[in-house]
């Protein structure tokens, strides 16, 4: 059985066609999310499904009936909308606003009362604001206000509930609260839900299916894991993103990455020997100054790998929890050989990465400038019983080795050598 069927839907405003052929089905048990960039037609979809704007081409079927054959009241008895934030012009009470949900069921000469009243009370208690009934809408907090709008939609006793960015203005607590309520209504009361989101994580977490819209059409639809992929996100939002799985509840979450465009303006290659998060800042400075930057050897799990990724610095990578292999060493030495300068950051040195220091010592005469960053006492980060410290101290007497404390010092040392 299909509750909502949208086929080849085209519509828009005036001359401007917004929806350019949308197709999807919604079954009664579905909890489906609609995502997509601003202006892709998400809200227009809601307006078309609810018959607020006329359909140009195609058709929307609700329970097998064309919505173009239904009048406003008939539709409002089956489909309810929770809008983002509707401004109410006058200080109505919460109950008066929720009573408006009964409007489609009342005849012109009919008043509230009887079953209508109990439905309104029921709706208020379902969203947990029964004690707010007599309060003016003016004094409500954002969360209370939005729950009132949910209650108004519930008072319509709909089969299908549309949420048009209904939680966008809410803090994370209220956002989860509203979504949990929707989840309950979906599973317990068989309410079909179509929810428009800007928050991809929220969509991924609560929706069984996701429609990814782009430029008035559906770019992808299906399970969150099929729709929320880096490729789809790049194509639709123009953003690089990683999609991770939250091990706690197996839901997906999206981590956007803003990659810097590398504009190498200087003809100077600087190799950074770093680790343990000590290289991020200096690599960023160097990249910003326009140096060609490489890094190595880094463990794949090293926190400096994030900076490398972010800054698009070419790294030499070694597998986690293993000492540096021959291949990695060779690659690293070659990078140092081609580099004009080598920067060594104050990273903790142990048995696994002491080779990084040894390689610098080996190559010290091959490069124009070596900059040792020595912010902390070397012994404090030396886990090689003084072996690493002696190498580093030995290097300090070389004419082309300078020792600096801060990242700015690195830049000054390089510029002194006209690098």
């Amino acid at each position, binding site marked *: 059985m299909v509750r909502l069927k949208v086929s080849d839907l085209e519509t828009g*405003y*005036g001359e401007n066609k917004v929806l350019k052929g949308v197709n999807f089905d919604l079954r009664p048990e579905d909890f489906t999310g609609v995502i997509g960039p601003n202006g892709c037609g998400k809200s227009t979809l809601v*307006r078309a499904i*609810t018959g*607020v704007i006329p359909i140009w081409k195609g058709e929307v079927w609700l329970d097998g009936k064309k919505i173009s054959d239904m*009048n*406003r*009241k008939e*539709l*409002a*008895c089956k*489909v*309810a*909308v929770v*809008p983002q934030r*509707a*401004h*109410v*012009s*006058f*200080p*109505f009470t919460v109950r*008066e*606003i929720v009573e*408006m*949900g009964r*409007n*489609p069921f*009342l005849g*012109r*000469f009919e008043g509230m009362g009887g079953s209508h009243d109990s439905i309104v009370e029921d709706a208020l208690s379902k969203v947990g604001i029964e004690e707010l009934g007599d309060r*003016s809408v*003016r004094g409500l907090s954002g969360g209370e206000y939005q729950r009132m709008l949910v209650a*108004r939609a519930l008072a*319509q006793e709909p089969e299908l509930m549309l949420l048009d960015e209904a939680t966008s203005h809410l803090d994370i607590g209220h956002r989860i609260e509203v979504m949990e309520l929707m989840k309950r209504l979906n599973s317990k009361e068989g309410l079909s839900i179509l929810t428009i989101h800007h928050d991809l994580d929220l969509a991924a977490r609560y929706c069984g299916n996701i429609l990814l819209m782009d430029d008035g059409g559906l770019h992808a639809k299906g399970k969150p894991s099929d729709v929320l992929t880096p490729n789809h996100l790049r194509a639709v939002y123009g953003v690089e993103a990683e999609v991770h799985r939250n091990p706690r509840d197996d839901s997906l979450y999206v981590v956007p990455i803003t990659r810097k465009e590398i504009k190498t303006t200087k003809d100077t290659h600087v190799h950074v020997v770093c680790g343990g998060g000590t290289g991020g800042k200096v690599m960023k400075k160097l990249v910003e100054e326009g140096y060609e930057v490489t890094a190595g050897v880094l463990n794949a799990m090293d926190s400096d790998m994030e900076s490398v990724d972010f800054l698009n610095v070419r790294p030499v990578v070694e597998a986690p929890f293993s000492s540096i292999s021959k291949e990695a060493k060779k690659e690293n030495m070659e990078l140092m050989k081609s580099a004009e300068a080598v920067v060594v950051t104050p990273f903790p040195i142990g048995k696994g990465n002491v080779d990084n220091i040894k390689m610098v010592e080996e190559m010290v005469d091959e490069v124009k400038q070596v900059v040792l960053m020595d912010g902390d006492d070397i012994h404090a980060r030396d886990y090689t019983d003084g072996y690493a410290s002696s190498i580093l101290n030995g290097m300090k007497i070389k004419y082309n080795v300078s020792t600096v404390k801060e990242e700015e010092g690195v830049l000054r040392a390089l510029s002194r050598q006209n690098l």
Partner: protein
Amino acid sequence: MKAPFREHKKGFLLLLLSILTFVTLVSLSVGSRGVQIPYSKISAIIMSNIPLLDRVFPTYSGTDSVIIMQIRLPRVIFGILSGWALAVSGVTMQGIFRNPMASPYILGVSSGGALGASIGILLGLGLYYIPGLAFTLAIITAVTVFLLGRVNGKTDLPTLLLAGIAIGSFLGAITSYLKFVGRDTLQEIVFWTMGSLHGTIWQHIYIVLPIILFGTIMTSLFTRELNVIQAGEESAAYLGVDVERTKFVLLTLSSLLAAAVVAFTGIIGFVGLIMPHIARILIGPDHRWLVPSSALMGGIFLVSCDTIVRLSGNIPVGIITGLFGAPFFLYLLIKSRGETGW
């Protein structure tokens, strides 16, 4: 200040009814020429003119009877009806536009009416032709503004508002020109634009009463829709309201109500703008109660002002409505600061 009569809506309407009765009796007892008629006699004269009751009460004749039945009673009844209609029109317009500045004249009914009346006065037309011309031009203006406010097959309120202002200024310019060229008739036109209940006869009531009854009853049937629209037009559509039809019906009705009054009284300002606000402060925003409350308050207010008019030697009622209404409204506005809505 929370709307003090919100929990006592029926009581509030009863209170307004009794005030209206009181004000009516006071108004009947005083006149511009200083003729005081005692209340007992007023009641007796009115009773004796009501079919069936006239068999019980003795028939009165003479000056007092003529003053009451032919001069004061029609004027007071017409005052009630005018205040009533303007307030219903104003509350509807404010509800539709969701704008506190909306008045019965927002679609140009007043400027159209003024132009019609000016032409009539300039041409030296008689008692029925001037209101006829004013009414016709008022309606033509409202229809024009309404058509100008159509965007993509919908009534676009901001466009409508601006079209009303533009057309109003245009017609106002023509009226000013007519004032300028017709120096002999200048005073009459100016008086007309200040509004007056002077010279009301029963025939006026026979013409206006059906329009006002029709307008009020029809408006009352759309008060729930008007409430729902306060949550925004789009939300109202989601709640099953045919927003475009509601706007069309209510704009038509309230312009009709305003035009019917304007045609006979000229431009009485303030009643339609302020009575709905005061009613809202007192009884809350629910239009199902707001419309009748505003209507009764409009009647009370206009009859009271007209009583002062007659005691003060027939200065135009529009001056009195502003002079007494504005301070009272300001008082309520300050007392209820921040609670009026908008």
